[in-house]
């Protein structure tokens, strides 16, 4: 099994999958597809952690993988889907930058991250590429947050950033102590729930889910 994983460089395939799901977020207009892509991203992240823990034989990493799967892979997507349904807004049609251009820009961002971290100070244990990929996912998540108009797509961009962050932490250190991981996940879960509350309130008081309506406070 271990040989098989190495021979087919499964770890690299999965991490590239994580990068591609993050990039494809820029091409999607239907909000439900965005949530699906995020779910896929989280599942890939969890499976990467599980496979690495199998490779190095660290039992506590299985728990981390299971936690990632339940929170990011199941709970958050279910919650996000409910909000999308409740909003009755199914599409984010007019991003500030059109989809073709933002796909190009995310490609450029990935290249920039690769070049600037190529000779970096980091050597990660299980794959040279994972750190670059994780930083690229963080940057693309940030880019999504900037270019999208809807409150909910901004939340999904933030979640992509956090997935990238977890991947970065994992590639640098093989995961934090479990209690820390639990605390961070708990904060994240509460954060998304509170953001969800505000998404509903924005819709209620601005009668829109577009963030460019939020201009009452200036100076």
């Amino acid at each position, binding site marked *: 099994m271990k040989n098989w994983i190495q021979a087919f460089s499964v770890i690299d395939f999965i991490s590239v999958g994580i990068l591609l799901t993050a990039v494809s977020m820029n091409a999607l207009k239907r909000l439900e597809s965005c949530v699906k892509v995020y779910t896929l991203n989280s599942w890939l992240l969890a499976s990467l952690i599980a496979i690495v823990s199998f490779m190095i034989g660290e039992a506590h990493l299985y728990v981390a993988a299971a936690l990632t799967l339940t929170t990011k892979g199941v709970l958050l997507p279910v919650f996000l889907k409910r909000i999308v349904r409740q909003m009755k807004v199914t599409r984010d049609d007019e991003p500030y930058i059109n989809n073709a251009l933002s796909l190009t820009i995310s490609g450029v961002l990935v290249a920039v991250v690769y070049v600037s971290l190529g000779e970096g100070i980091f050597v990660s244990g299980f794959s040279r590429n994972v750190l670059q990929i994780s930083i690229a996912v963080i940057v693309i998540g940030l880019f999504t947050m900037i270019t999208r108009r809807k409150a909910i797509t901004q939340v999904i961009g933030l979640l992509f950033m956090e997935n990238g962050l977890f991947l970065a932490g994992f590639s640098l*250190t093989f995961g934090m102590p479990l209690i*820390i991981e639990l605390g961070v996940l708990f904060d994240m879960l509460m954060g998304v729930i509170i953001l969800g509350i505000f998404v509903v309130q*924005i819709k209620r008081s601005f009668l829109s889910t577009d963030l460019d309506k939020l201009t009452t406070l200036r100076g």
Partner: protein
Amino acid sequence: MIGVLLLIPVVTALLCSFFRNRKTIEVINVIGVIALTAVSVPQITGALSAQEYFMGGVLFMDALSAYIMAIVVFIALVAAIYSVDYMGQEYKEGAVTLKGLRYYYALFHLFIFTMLLVSVSNNLAVFWIAIEGTTLVSALLVGFYKNRQSIEAAWKYIILCTVGITFALLGIFITYYASAGATGGKGTLNWTELREMSHRLNPSTMKLAFILILIGYGTKAGLAPVHNWLPDAHSQAPTPISALLSSILLKCAFIGIVRFAIILNGSAGSSYAGNLLLIFGLLSMGIATAFILLQNNYKRLLAYHSIEHIGIIATGMGLGGPLGIYGSLLHILNHAIVKALLFFTTGQVRLRYFSTKIDKVRGVITLLPVSGAVMLLAALAIAGTPPFNIFLSEFIILKAAAEGGSWVTFTLFLVFATIIFGGVLHHFGGMAFGEPNVSHEMKGERKLVSILIVVMATGMLLLGVYVPSFLELMLSGSLKVITGG
């Protein structure tokens, strides 16, 4: 004992959300903060003499934690007492329902809990979790009134601070990686252990980590140019919460940067962190100066003053040396007292004039003699007028700049302070004097609030002329923690 200390605000929050009677909730709220103060005093004095660890080293208290905890507890105490009156009046006017009141007090005490946790975290990740906790709880408080402006402010606040703090977490991961490299085995996230091994940590890795931490906690601390959430959040939150945000929350986040800078100083020498703090400190002061002059909303004006003063604190820390750090630490307390006082007095103004626009408010001294007079004194204090406490700490920081020969810092500091002085006189002078432009009928001032603000104003004056011995003890202890002497 630390467990009891941390449990008190949580229990108070639960009780506040449980009861359905306004008087009961208010009494629980006051008992909660008084119990907190009573328990924290022996804890703080104990930590001053010797460093203490709790829960297997995850939590700890040294002199710096004790100092920050003392400020948090003090401001929590006055803000909780002030809340009883302020939110009570909002309730009578119908701006807040009973359900809202329960929700408010529950979140208030949870907010205090997260800040206490910040002050005693030894583990960097627990610190991070606590800081993110403060964002989540206080975002709900910023959006408390559920109108367009407050929802917008809360949204900006939570998004900006969460994105910022994501970078801080990356910085913490990198630190963990660096510590694993230094020990050759398992890494550590305990601040005390990291400080001991700091000379073995890779300096360039730690510099990268520090930049990420500075972005992350700097967003939360309100350092320019990542301060944009701050004026919105401060102006939209209920007044006692604005006082908490400005007086203690910003400082809690700033201490995160300081704690990290201590590790970096051991690894890469003190000039790197110091210079960065100096640059962002002066930038914050400069940007705040411009907005203070142009401001037409007094709550936003006070928010920009917070950016200015966090800039001053960062400048003092960046100058370094015992004098600069001492001044900076003293300024943390002084600004907390004066800013809370300003929010409390202008809160009374808002309840009387129903507006937060500066040009809609005239003749406060005539209508509200006590609040008006204290507001004017506190405004003079915040501008750095002697003999108030802010003058003393600003003077110490300036002296540190002069002794260190940082003449650029010295000049910029003086220029900004002078311009801000003019701005403060213009804005607050206009509000305090003149013919009142709302109905003249005297409602009489609230006794409780008057006593509270007069006591705090006395403190503000006393701290300007001398530093009491227990405060001196905390300051010199914290100074030792930071300089490592």
